[in-house]
């Protein structure tokens, strides 16, 4: 418990270190919108993933090394970057047949 308290304190302190750049991505009908997402290369940014479906989804990408649950109707932040220019695939782990997207860092 003490560990969690210390961790939350550390999180609060480091909160200001998060980048200001915000990129939006949404999930609707188990598809990513936009499916091809342009992001800035070489800087940190915050990706806000909004789930507009009534079912949970998991934002996942092997190439970005991210895996995060997005509950129905909610928006979650994913901290990314700095990325090298290039393409990074991501998908929805719970609906892999439809929820596919690619992030293009420029």
């Amino acid at each position, binding site marked *: 418990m003490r*560990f*969690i308290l210390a*961790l*939350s304190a*550390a*999180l*609060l302190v*480091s*909160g200001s*270190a*998060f980048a200001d750049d915000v990129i939006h991505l949404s999930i609707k009908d188990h598809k990513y919108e936009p499916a091809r997402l342009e992001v800035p290369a070489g800087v940190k940014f915050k990706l806000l993933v909004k789930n507009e*479906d*009534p*079912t*949970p*989804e*998991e934002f996942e990408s*092997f*190439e970005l*090394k*991210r895996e*995060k*649950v*997005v*509950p*129905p109707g*909610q928006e*979650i*932040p994913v*901290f990314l970057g700095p990325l090298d220019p290039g393409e990074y695939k991501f998908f929805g*782990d*719970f*609906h*892999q*047949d439809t929820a596919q997207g690619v992030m293009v860092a420029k």
Partner: protein
Amino acid sequence: MLASLLIVFREILEAGLIVGIVLAATEGVRRRGLWVAGGVAGGVLGAALVAGFAGALSNALEGVGQEAFTVGILSLAVLMLGWHTIWMARHGREMAAEMSAAGAAVKGGRKSLLAMAIVVAIAVLREGSEVVLFLYGIAVSTQEGPLPLLAGGVIGLLLGSLLSYLLYRGLVIIPMRHLFSVTNTLVALLAAGMAGQAADLLARIEVIPTWGDQLWDSSAFLSEGSLVGRALHALIGYSDRPSGVQVAAYLVTLVLLISLSRYIGRPNATQRGRKAGGQPATQAR
């Protein structure tokens, strides 16, 4: 159906591999079945709770609650595995020597069993909450045909359990004398992998530096997304694109646990060494 089969199979396998190692590592300890079963039950209950509060969890701590929570339970698991390693270093030799002698270190055994039950609960909770969320999704969106999806889930559950059971059987055919040295190594690797994941998660939410975002990329050789990659990830913490701090935490935990168990298990605990008969002390660990 295939999608649900794969998801459930994958999660069950990941938790099951850990349960298999715990079962092998506690081979011969009395009433371990009860403790491990309790751990599984607690994990399932926890998974349902975590899934139910997924929304609140995500929004906690400025949106990084999911990561903070995972780091918390991973750290707890690493502590418990460390505890077990040290306990085994103390008692492993006498357990190997007097396997049949009932009540070998029962008191200490219970403590270690509690630690291992917690590890089991955490493994089941982590993987199980994804299954619960996934199945909840099926239940809500009926237009996708819940029956074939649930059937796939059940088949995935059976296949995952079967494979985990085979790993356990494979481990326990190792002669008792060597079993604990094998499982101790596995437990140390398991703990190191979890410590690495915890460090990597902390780096992702920028609490600690990454020390290099990606030390290497072996995804072309063995992808972490493949079945073998997933299994190795659960077992020994394999990562195809590890961050620097992840590798550092991995190595530190591994070296620490191995040297601690060597140090504590040294044969100067004399009477135990003699009881073990002509068996070289180094082998019994």
